[in-house]
């Protein structure tokens, strides 16, 4: 199902709140090759917990043991960095687009 088809689906057909999650290329092999996944949840934390329950291999790349976001992971809900929205407590609305972006960093040190 394409992203647009998912977003056109009526809320009551899905039954519960769901977000469209864009998967970065580095995580796709561990997530069945999908580039876009629909995940249910009222918060970023719930979405990521459901995601990692389905794909446990990516858990340590997304979440710290205490359930907070991995420091090298950027998470956007639509155009907003969730760090400024409460982190894993950031609320999700139906059809929100969540983008996972591993930090791109390094240096000569």
């Amino acid at each position, binding site marked *: 199902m394409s992203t647009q088809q998912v977003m056109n689906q009526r809320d009551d057909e899905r039954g519960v709140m769901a977000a469209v999650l864009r998967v970065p*290329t580095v995580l796709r092999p561990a997530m069945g090759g999908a580039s876009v996944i629909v995940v249910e949840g009222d918060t970023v934390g719930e979405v990521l917990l459901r995601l990692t329950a389905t794909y446990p291999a990516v858990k340590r790349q997304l979440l710290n043991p205490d359930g907070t976001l991995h420091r090298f992971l950027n998470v956007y809900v639509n*155009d907003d960095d969730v760090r400024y929205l409460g982190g894993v407590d950031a609320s999700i609305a139906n059809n929100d687009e969540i983008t996972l*972006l591993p*930090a791109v*960093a*390094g240096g000569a040190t």
Partner: protein
Amino acid sequence: MLSLNASQRDAILAACIRALPNEGCGLLLGARDVVTDVVDSPNVADSAKLYEVDPRVLLSATRHADDQGIDVLGVFHSHTHSEAYPSPTDVAQAPDPSWHYLIVSLRDAPVMRSFRVLEGSVVEEPLSIGA
């Protein structure tokens, strides 16, 4: 092999020189190992020894790539006082094994080299710079 043209090479060098005294950085977009877009980024680490691509630039570039049917091929960054070779930090923080890692040394005359980082191992790859 990573392929880019002379104009893109010049854009990368200019971005790295503009970033001095800090490390410069940015993203490489394209398809099938051929660069189509060079996306300069602020170095949010604000350091002469570390870099971090602005996440907002990464978000924008990722969306642009999706819209255009191309990929984020990799990242470029500069080493201001050391060789154009991945440091232990570069290797440890390499975000994606499918990416190309282009490094520019500004220690002396600019040197540009490209690498792949696979499970902690560095492999230099040919860098083709066309007209």
